[in-house]
């Protein structure tokens, strides 16, 4: 048996079975999906890859092969891939587990298995070319996950996302076709210039870099926040990991100070602009979209530290941000019940009926600000900003701090102090309050146990060259 069968074929088959399970509600399907994803995460932690595993008193051995071939191309998941495999499937299990509490349709548990399986295959690809093609398939697959419900039938955001996903693929493939022979060329040559331009444009389209960020608020306005958080976050992590796995083989990406300086400016600009735009949003769905863009800004800032330090910083931020996305988008989704409306006039006074869930929605939004030495913001600042900042960079960081903080205060006022009562006003259940405690406990662990995430990041770093 090879690792591809275990972490790609098995979850895809399970996703098919869960998806085709007739008339089962989300509450039942989520246990099946979370169970399979949890077992795969445990397998990543416990099973040796590429080494014989003794069975029945050492008379028989069983080996999980690390490599396999598909249509002439090699794929591999060796022992160094175990940390990110465990994380990816643990996130999938957690997202599947909370799906019923977020009142998602029964299709979601199947997606919580299928999407990580596709991303695992892309990460296992030996070459960048098949990895890019597999990522493209995953991006198009997100359309099914994000297609709006009947209350939001326009689908403009999803269509723009699809356009960006399809337009990015040819640019990346054309760049890769030009690459052989240019890996060690100096950055100033015209060949490298054209190739870098194609590559940069393709990746910018896929990652929603300014000015292609416009898809985020559109998606946030149309898509259920929990679905957007799940698909957006997992795809972002997989895209960055694929690029980090391949980029060291290209000298003009590996040793190019101008590239990292640009990433730093891009990161600071993104967190400042997204943070500033949070102040003027009247739809909580659009807030989720802009926070997704802001979150990518922290990634660029972390990666600006160079391939070595940047990868570690990015990975250190991975777990805290996953837990923040999970808990926050769950709370926002619950607040939008029963008809998935997220405009401020629909949410006014909602916090009086669901005070605990609203508190998570407010705290989650405020946590995206780079609070010095406190909460997720402290971790963001500590890992993404290790070097000295210029005065104008401090100014951008201040905007990034004020934006989410003031937006959190503003939405707290809307939730708790607004005179209107939403119709109908659903009170939160004891089960939802229990989940609030779990979410807050996870966030406190993020804030006060940074060593845990550093240790995981150091282990996951071993997979990268």
């Amino acid at each position: 048996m090879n690792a591809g069968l275990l972490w790609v074929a098995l979850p895809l088959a399970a996703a098919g079975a869960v998806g085709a399970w007739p008339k089962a509600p989300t509450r039942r399907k989520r246990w099946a999906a979370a169970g399979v994803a949890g077992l795969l995460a445990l397998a990543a932690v416990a099973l040796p890859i590429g080494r014989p595993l003794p069975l029945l008193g050492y008379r028989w051995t069983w080996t999980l092969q690390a490599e396999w071939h598909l249509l002439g191309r090699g794929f591999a998941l060796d022992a160094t891939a175990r940390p990110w495999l465990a994380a990816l499937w643990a996130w999938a299990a957690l997202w599947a587990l909370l799906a019923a509490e977020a009142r998602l349709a029964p299709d979601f548990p199947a997606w919580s298995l299928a999407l990580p399986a596709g991303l695992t295959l892309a990460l296992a690809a030996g070459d960048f070319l098949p990895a890019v093609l597999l990522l493209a398939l995953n991006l198009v697959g997100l359309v099914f996950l994000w297609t709006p419900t009947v209350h939001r039938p326009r689908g403009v955001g999803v269509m723009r996302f699809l356009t960006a996903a399809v337009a990015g693929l040819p640019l990346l493939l054309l760049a890769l076709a030009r690459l052989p022979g240019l890996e060690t060329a100096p950055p100033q040559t015209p060949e490298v210039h054209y190739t870098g331009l194609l590559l940069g444009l393709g990746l910018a389209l896929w990652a929603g870099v300014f000015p292609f960020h416009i898809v985020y608020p559109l998606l946030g306005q149309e898509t259920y926040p929990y679905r957007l958080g799940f698909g957006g976050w997992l795809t972002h992590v997989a895209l960055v990991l694929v690029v980090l796995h391949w980029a060291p083989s290209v000298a003009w990406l590996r040793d190019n100070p101008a590239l990292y300086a640009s990433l730093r400016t891009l990161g600071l600009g993104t967190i400042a602009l997204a943070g500033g735009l949070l102040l003027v949003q009247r739809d909580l769905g659009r807030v989720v979209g802009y926070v997704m863009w802001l979150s990518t800004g922290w990634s660029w800032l972390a990666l600006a530290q160079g391939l070595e330090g940047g990868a570690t910083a990015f990975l250190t931020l991975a777990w805290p941000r996953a837990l923040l996305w999970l808990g926050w988008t769950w709370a926002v989704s619950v607040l939008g019940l029963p008809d998935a409306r997220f405009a401020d006039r629909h949410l006014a006074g909602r916090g009086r009926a669901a005070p605990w869930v609203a508190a998570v929605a407010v705290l989650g939004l405020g946590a995206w600000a780079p609070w010095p030495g406190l909460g997720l913001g402290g971790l963001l600042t500590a890992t993404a900003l290790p070097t000295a900042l210029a005065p104008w960079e401090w100014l951008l960081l201040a905007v990034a701090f004020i934006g989410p903080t003031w937006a959190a205060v503003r939405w707290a006022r809307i939730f708790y102090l607004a005179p209107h009562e939403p119709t109908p006003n659903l009170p939160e259940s004891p089960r939802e309050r229990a989940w609030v405690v779990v979410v807050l406990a996870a966030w406190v662990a993020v804030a006060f146990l940074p060593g845990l995430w550093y240790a995981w990041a150091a282990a996951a770093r071993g997979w990268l060259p």
Partner: protein
Amino acid sequence: MWWMVGLALLLLVVHDWRGLIAGLAALQAALLAVLWQAWPAALAVTQLIAGWLAGAMLAIGQNLHPTPPGLTPPWSERLVRLLAGLLAVALVWATASTLAAVWPQVPWSARLGGASVALLGLIQAAWSRHPLRLSVGLLTGLSGFLALYAWQQHGLLLTGLLGMFQVLLAWAGSYLIHQTLAGEERL
């Protein structure tokens, strides 16, 4: 190759969904003629099947709903679309020397024609708010890209994944058509 450019221009102005699907099928057949020169025959035919399958999926998705893609656009709008398309082709011709420097190994007709079709497809996709037009535009753009890319690389996995990508794109488009039109009917 120039058949492809003509068909891509036609797709910009056609309104009826049957015309769009027929145009897309003809475009895929024209693409086969280009790929035949660059790829092994089996791979070129695989691409044709994937392209036609994508068109069929879009047709099924649209046919499930009696609603037309939208109100019939006035002739002036079609004229503007055509002019924008011709301008895009002229733009590609104007940058012929740059394209030759970037892709010297691609024959000039495939280089200019492929880039023109890709740009026309992108215009079609960017101009539309209807999932059918968007999907047809994106598939047109991919056809132009393939005419350009086929001279640079080929392989079994590459062809298979690109074929899968087109079919999945059409499936997603068909799903969007269903969701959008079903939503409009309920509203």
